[in-house]
């Protein structure tokens, strides 16, 4: 237990350090962006500009602003949005985070479970019809952009069949089904392809041969010995995939008119909304770092060969 707490403490320190570096780099890079947060600058007088700059603290030297910003973050103050009538960034984002995270998680969960299942089936029927079918599906899923899938899903389930709402976020779970499906295509295809490759390798290994020699049936071998070993590498891919789905579903969010975070991000970059850019960047990075951390922990639980450094 002590080893674990030491390990986790160490990891948390490095996570914080990573975030600090990312935040700093973003802060300085952002200030190199052309333009200012004021979209009607041409019509502002020098005095007005000076006043605005003073109000938002842009009159101070860059480094001073950097220090101030970090201090504020430590107090949980992410600043105020410059584009939405001075709303605090934190409020703005927290309102929008829910749908994005929900969609991302649902898509990863559904996509991976189905993808893994298809991958196992494909591996068990290597080079036969089912395998070719699953591979075709995986290739299609990887190559067709999710916004195309989104529109097709809308056409089929919302317009032709009229089973599900075409968009918006006002019918609870029903509203989430189509965007989840659209987003899940990519993790589904990815994990199908990944698990197939891993399983083909695992199924030809000596311990699977031993399991066969025990008199076990092929299906039991695949799921009790095969999948267990094939899943381990998938976990590493899964973490970043989850984050990118939680944060990178911009287009799909737009198509389904989901009030998510992706849309917010693009808008803030286009309008030089410094504090929102910073907050979203830090949020995404924190999610990514946290997921990588969780992946490592999970890895150690699943794969007994990977142990906390210094253990044993």
């Amino acid at each position, binding site marked *: 237990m002590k080893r674990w707490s030491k390990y986790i403490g160490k990891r948390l320190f490095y996570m914080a350090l990573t975030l600090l570096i990312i935040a700093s780099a973003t802060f300085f890079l952002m200030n190199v962006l052309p333009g200012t947060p004021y979209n009607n600058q041409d019509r502002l007088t020098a005095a007005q500009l000076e006043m605005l700059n003073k109000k938002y603290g842009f009159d101070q030297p860059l480094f001073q602003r950097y220090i101030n910003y970090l201090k504020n973050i430590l107090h949980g103050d992410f600043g105020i949005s410059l584009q939405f009538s001075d709303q605090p960034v934190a409020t703005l984002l927290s309102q929008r985070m829910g749908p994005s995270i929900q969609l991302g998680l649902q898509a990863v969960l559904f996509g991976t479970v189905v993808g893994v299942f298809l991958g196992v089936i494909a591996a068990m029927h290597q080079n036969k019809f089912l395998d070719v079918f699953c591979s075709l599906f995986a290739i299609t899923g990887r190559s067709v952009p999710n916004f195309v899938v989104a529109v097709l899903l809308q056409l089929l389930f919302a317009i032709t069949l009229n089973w599900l709402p075409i968009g918006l976020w006002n019918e609870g779970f029903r509203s989430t089904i189509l965007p989840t499906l659209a987003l899940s295509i990519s993790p589904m295809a990815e994990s199908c392809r990944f698990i197939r490759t891993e399983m083909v390798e695992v199924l030809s*290994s*000596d*311990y699977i*041969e*031993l*399991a*066969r*020699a*025990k*008199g*076990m*049936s092929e299906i039991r071998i695949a799921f*009790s*010995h095969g999948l*267990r*070993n094939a899943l*381990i590498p998938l976990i590493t891919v899964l973490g970043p995939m989850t984050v990118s789905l939680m944060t990178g579903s911009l287009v799909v969010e737009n198509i389904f008119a989901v009030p998510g975070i992706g849309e917010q991000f693009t808008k803030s970059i286009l309008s030089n909304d410094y504090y929102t850019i910073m907050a979203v960047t830090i949020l995404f990075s924190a999610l990514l770092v946290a997921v990588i951390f969780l992946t490592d922990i999970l890895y150690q639980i*699943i*794969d*007994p*060969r990977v142990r906390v450094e210094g253990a044993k």
Partner: protein
Amino acid sequence: MAEKVLEVRRLSVSFDTYAGKVQAVRDISFELKRGETLALVGESGCGKSVTCRSIMGLLAKNAKVEGGEILFENRDLLKLSNSAMRSTRGGKIAMIFQDPMTSLDPTMKIGKQIAETVRLHKPVTRAAAKQRAVELLALVGIEEPEKRYHQYPHEFSGGQRQRIVIAIALAADPQILIADEPTTALDVTMQAQILDLIKEIQKKTGASVIFITHDLGVVANVADRVAVMYAGRIIEIGQADEVFYDPRHPYTWGLLASMPTLTTNDETLYAIPGTPPTLIDPAPGDAFAPRNPWALEADRLAEPPLFPVSDTHFAATWLLDERAPKIDPPESIVLRAQAFRKRQSERSASL
């Protein structure tokens, strides 16, 4: 004479490959008696592993049984359905694999891997299976079996892992144990321990063992009978003493001569010239003829049958035909036999 537990009759197995059909096992027959150890000896690719995999029903997908039968408990194993074969495999006939480092599932507790096998073949509760697994661990010489039940393969050494693989093989009290080069991947001291363990287990359980190896030193240590295989055929079979000290086939001579002994004085060790033939469209005649300095004209024309040397000893070489010229085996073989007879007579004298 002990009863037969397994009989292989005229078994032929081939593989479809891109290069053509490889005749890996060509018309071999042998039987296994209760409680005995039969060693299958030969170099890589001679068909010894394929023979055993046929018995286990574990042939690769591109393998095809061309003919023959494998009789076990009055049934032809080659004709069993998949599910019937599964209950035999691992239950009544179990296998010990070559490489203990890769034979165990790295993500599963070793105890569970044993208990799982127990439960596959016996209608017992989880707790009983676990109890049995702990007993098996103790039987194969793993210390503190209760504690080690919960450990993973990477926490064991190579020798210990091979003990665990043996425990898995023993899980369902098999009548036949097939050991496919069980000591090849181990260092020499470990080899001796594992061989002793297999012998000890055989004594306790009365199981018959088919021992595949290319190491004649190992054979001398464990085998009651020896079958020498070459190019998919059994070319000499007999009691271990007969094959070791009165070999009749030139290939067996070559094998024995290429094995160093304590009395070997020569600077260089004998090697059989040439390489084994490919088994795609083998040439007519004795497959060993091209490498055989004693080859006769007949060897190139027709495959020799197994000539009886004694009731238990057979060799497939035309040299044993009555029309063949009398040829003495190489000197080292003669010396070996003389040394053996001397020891035997000393032993009987001292008794």
